[in-house]
């Protein structure tokens, strides 16, 4: 295992910190504080439910914005700013550089999620109920959110290798949305009579990353357990898809002439 990606990853993380990306945590904290204070006014008895829904949805959405907006610039920004010239003249392979950039952004997301989890826990604590064993499903949900974000980051990185940030954002967002509704698209195909549509929708279903696999916020807010088998399968699914994307990105980037 080569060591070259590691310093790239650390530097990517450092860049995010110095770009004040982590300041989004301030907004998250304000959101959680506001929610914790106001939630009692909505309805008695579901304050914990609402805080978990809001907190996990915010963790997911903030993370998504970060994964996409930083992700699409991971490579293209370095080419644009020409910082890549002196770096690639170093003894580092192109795929090592990619893995490092990817790992750096994922690390940033993990750190971000960690602090948000603390914020969520604080809000739940404030609302008053002590933690019970079923709350562990909230942690599983956060893990699923991280898997999703890792997958979105890989998609964004892939596009970053050859496309402009604007187009990459559109493509990545498009795939994310399609991936969320993939099972509905397939269901639609199953209903129609046209065999052509059936085939197309099936292909879309298996091709696009099925983000709905990771839907877990409802389960977390209702305290329902998520089977361990699903945790394992989703981990494997995400790992395979990320590997696929990183291999494809390496192939594209290794042949790219830097302007």
């Amino acid at each position, binding site marked *: 295992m080569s060591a070259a990606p590691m310093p790239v990853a650390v530097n990517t993380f450092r*860049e995010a910190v110095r770009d004040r990306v982590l300041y989004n945590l301030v907004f998250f904290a304000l959101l959680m504080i506001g929610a914790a204070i106001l939630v009692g006014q909505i309805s008695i008895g579901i304050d914990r439910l609402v805080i978990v829904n809001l907190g996990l949805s915010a963790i997911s959405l903030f993370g998504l914005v970060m994964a996409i907006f930083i992700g699409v610039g991971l490579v293209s920004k370095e080419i644009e700013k*020409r910082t890549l*010239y002196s770096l*690639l*003249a170093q003894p580092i392979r192109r795929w090592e550089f990619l893995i490092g950039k990817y790992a750096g952004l994922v690390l940033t997301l993990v750190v971000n999620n960690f602090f948000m989890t603390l914020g969520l826990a604080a809000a739940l604590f404030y609302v008053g109920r002590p933690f019970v064993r079923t709350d562990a499903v909230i942690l599983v949900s956060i893990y699923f959110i991280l898997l999703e974000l890792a997958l979105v980051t890989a998609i964004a990185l892939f596009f970053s290798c050859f496309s402009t940030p604007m187009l990459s954002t559109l493509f990545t967002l498009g795939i994310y949305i399609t991936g969320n509704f993939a099972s509905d698209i397939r269901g639609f195909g199953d209903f129609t009579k046209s065999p052509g549509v059936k085939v197309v929708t099936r292909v879309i279903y298996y091709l696009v990353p099925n983000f709905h696999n990771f839907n877990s916020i409802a389960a977390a807010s209702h305290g329902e357990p998520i089977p361990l088998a699903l945790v394992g399968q989703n981990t494997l699914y995400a790992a395979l898809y990320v590997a696929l994307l990183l291999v494809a990105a390496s192939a594209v980037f290794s042949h790219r002439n830097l302007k």
Partner: protein
Amino acid sequence: MNAPAIEILGLTKDYPVGFWRKKMRRSLDNLTLQVEEGEIFGYLGPNGAGKTTTLKLLTGLIFPTAGTARVRGKSIDDVTMHREIGYLPEQPYFYDYLTARELLDYYGHFGGLSKAQRRERVAQLLERVGLASAANLQLRKYSKGMLQRAGIAQAMLHDPKVVFLDEPMSGLDPVGRREVRDIILELKNQGKTVFFSTHILSDAEMLCDRVAVLASGKLLGVGAPGDIVALEVHAMDILFELREGRSLPAGLPGQVTTMGGRCHMEVPESDLYAALEQLRRCEARILSVLPVRPTLEDYFLRLVEKEKVTSHTVEVTVR
């Protein structure tokens, strides 16, 4: 005889141009060149000649359409070759949120040095390029000259055997340029090979063991500056003053330019004594007689002009 430090064989680079990207523009045409170990090699040419393209091909930033090259015996495809080279890009851009120290430390990771070794080497280099006092300032606050120095520092980081510098003097004031010249000479003293591109011919003349001239992607000539220049001594410059009241004699064998009472006259060597005799007769005061040494610039301009007249952009239509 040692293997050449840099060996380039038929290196060619085409870029697709036009809306449909069907036409190709050849930015480097069949370059064949060798640079010996320990040489300071100047790579000259007007803007757009293909100098930067050559450097980017050699450092693996772009890929050749045809041809091969080897540095220290290793192909340019081979990433391990990068351990032995240093590269200063034209107008270097670095991560502006890093300090110079952090940048060097970051790049230092790729050279297999331990943490302590890295720290020492970085401190050494910062000292050498005169950035020790600004080492902890973010690069976004650096002036152009400071960035250039940081760039040289990172090019020397892994103690490379071959150093590629793309316009290393650009944007520097005379003090800065002298420092860079000193560094280049120092590198040569350490036995390194320096390959640098420039369009400032006086620098090349002063520093280089050999130069190559490139224009429109084609190699026009290679040789030592002295050899190139020696081919062309042919005139003498006479500096003189006219006596008061006297005017220029007619029929002088050369052009006279006057500036503030003093006159310069360039005459072919063969006409020197005849011209001096004419001036003696009108009692002009001779101030100096010097050979007009053609500079590299003359050689250069002549080659480039010739190339422009005899060539046009090579168009290769993709079928």
